[in-house]
């Protein structure tokens, strides 16, 4: 058993999540482990099908009906969520973990006013009376930067713009002062300038409240903007993790390296992009050995046979590549 720092808030250990029934079952997430300390930020970065959102859903007990955790532990503030009864997990999720989703419109109920929805949280979870709950709702709506909060509580979700709706969703997520905020692609549906506003809001709230942040995203730039550490996921597993800057400047996994060099920059970049060939594998037909080997420029015979373990590279980094030491020594990505 590995010893963890005393202030570890969330610890995911060898998590596996299965989707589907007997015949067509597949593992969407396999052997995923990471720790998040109090006040720390971590990004799960990956493309569609990498398992990043499923990991978040497993933590929040929001997995779809056809999915189940088959092994592993999720320890949050000392309690193993996997073995807890669902009702207790739901309790924790409402009060001590908050979640922000990609699409703010589906996260809000269209037939209730914003005030009703937010005040309900305070009434149900904290037993406040109507008046006090309404005042508390106004306070939290004000805290997420919605002007004229008290009056706006009477409005319905459709009366707000996309950016304001995402602020409302954030208000609901942080209303009960959770210790952990999980944000799943919180800015993907928003325009660039609004995106900047929302990320700034999340950063400010985190600084003020000291909550931990788990950010799920496909956007390399958003990661660099907000979090200290990143875990890169591919085909259901973490392939590389470490401080964002170290990982981005000198990737130790060829997939990370491929991602970094395949995106254009704001500066002049003549010629073709160094794209990763092929496509992410179908989760039902993942390649043998290292799941990235068919697309990997560094692949050697061992890669198609033996799956590389996620192993330590120095103090704070880990990578799952047989040749990580070679990859990390390559010229920095430019």
């Amino acid at each position, binding site marked *: 058993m590995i010893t963890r720092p005393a202030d570890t808030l969330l610890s995911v250990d060898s998590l596996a999540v299965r989707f589907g029934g007997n015949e067509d079952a597949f593992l969407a997430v396999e052997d995923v482990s990471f720790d998040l300390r109090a006040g720390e930020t971590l990004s799960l970065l990956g493309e569609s099908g990498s398992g990043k959102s499923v990991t978040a859903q497993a933590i929040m007990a929001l997995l779809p009906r056809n999915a189940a955790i088959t092994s592993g532990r999720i320890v949050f503030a000392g309690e193993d969520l996997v073995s807890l009864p669902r009702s207790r997990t739901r309790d924790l999720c409402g009060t001590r973990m908050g979640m922000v989703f990609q699409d703010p419109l589906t996260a809000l109920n269209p037939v209730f006013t914003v005030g009703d929805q937010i005040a309900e949280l305070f009434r149900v979870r904290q037993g406040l009376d109507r008046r006090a709950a309404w005042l508390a709702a106004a306070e939290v709506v004000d805290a997420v930067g919605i002007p004229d909060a008290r009056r706006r509580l009477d409005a319905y979700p459709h009366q707000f713009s996309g950016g304001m709706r995402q602020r409302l969703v954030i208000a609901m997520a942080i209303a009960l002062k959770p210790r952990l905020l999980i944000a799943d692609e919180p800015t993907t549906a928003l325009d660039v300038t609004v995106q900047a506003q929302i990320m700034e809001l999340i950063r400010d709230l985190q600084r003020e409240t000291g909550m931990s942040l788990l950010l799920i995203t496909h956007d390399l730039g958003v990661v*660099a903007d907000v979090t200290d550490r990143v875990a890169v996921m591919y085909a259901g597993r973490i392939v590389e993790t470490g401080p964002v800057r170290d990982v981005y400047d000198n990737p130790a996994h060829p997939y990370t390296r491929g991602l970094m060099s395949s995106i254009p920059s704001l500066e002049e970049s003549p010629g073709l992009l160094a*794209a990763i060939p092929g496509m992410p594998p179908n989760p039902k037909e993942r390649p043998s050995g290292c799941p990235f080997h068919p697309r990997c420029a560094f692949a050697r015979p061992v890669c198609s046979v033996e799956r590389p373990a996620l192993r330590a590279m120095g103090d704070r980094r880990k990578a799952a590549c047989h040749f990580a030491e070679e990859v990390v020594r390559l010229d920095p990505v430019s």
Partner: protein
Amino acid sequence: MTRSPEPLLSIEDLRVSFAIRSGFLRRTKAEVRGVDGVSFSVMQGKTLGIVGESGCGKSTTARAIIGLETPNSGAISFAGERIELATPKRRRQLARHIQMIYQDPFASLNPRKTVEQIIGEGWLVHPDLVPESERKAETALLMRRVGLDPALSNRFPHQFSGGQRQRIGIARALALRPRLLVCDEPVSALDVSVQAQTLNLLAELQHELGLTYVFIAHDLSVVRHVSDTIAVMYLGRIVETGPIGPIYARPAHPYTLALMSAAPVSRPWAVSRPSRIVLKGELPSPLAPPPGCRFHTRCWMARARCRIEEPKLREVAGRKTACHFAEEVVAEAAPIGTP
């Protein structure tokens, strides 16, 4: 490739508005000016990038170019010919030369048709382009050209990934041997690794076939990579336009500057750029655009003049900008580049 000195596409003072109808008689209650006096041109074989946030009119402009929207006024000239004045028959002929690539590779392909049928659809309208006996071979050629296995020509769209579907959409556009491709957010729905492949494909096709692109996107890094010239739109107007180099190095419009400073880049520590400007407030409703400069409600530099007098596009530091204080913006903005 011969390059004509005349632009392949030129738009002059384009205006497109939408009527807001309500009430029992569906009377027009208001009018939204989606595109309000936009002019630009694109040279043969070059790419014009159009950027802006939702509601700025960039997609409406694209739809007007391919004839899906009827402009209220303005001129759209293709190879020197006014499209909007052409007879319906002539319009159909011209339409072949202007094809569109859509954002959503899931919604833009008919789920009941095979890839072969989708790619060959345009030949039903333009049967003389490819004789019927050669269509199968031509389809295979097109599929190979965009990186798809011709053996899959009898499959349906749902059997392909997002990136492959976008390739099908590109093959369908190429089937009519167009000269101009209007690409509306062609890579924004794709994963990062697939996005790079698609951008490379578009670049190769442009090089080989001498295609001209109008490339609409919200991702400033992508636009920088593919474009020769750029137009930045805000609330139906172009606020800054010109060659890509000077504009990215030193924006002259506060809105462009804000976009550049806020654009997420993968390694912010490796790029020097103006410190982040987080714009206050939201995009005003296009129903009631602010008087004076449309950007003044969100502009940190706005002064009394901006609220009254609308700035015109004018030449400033190698590009055109619609800001009264463009010289100040250029002078103050820290250049973007490697530190």
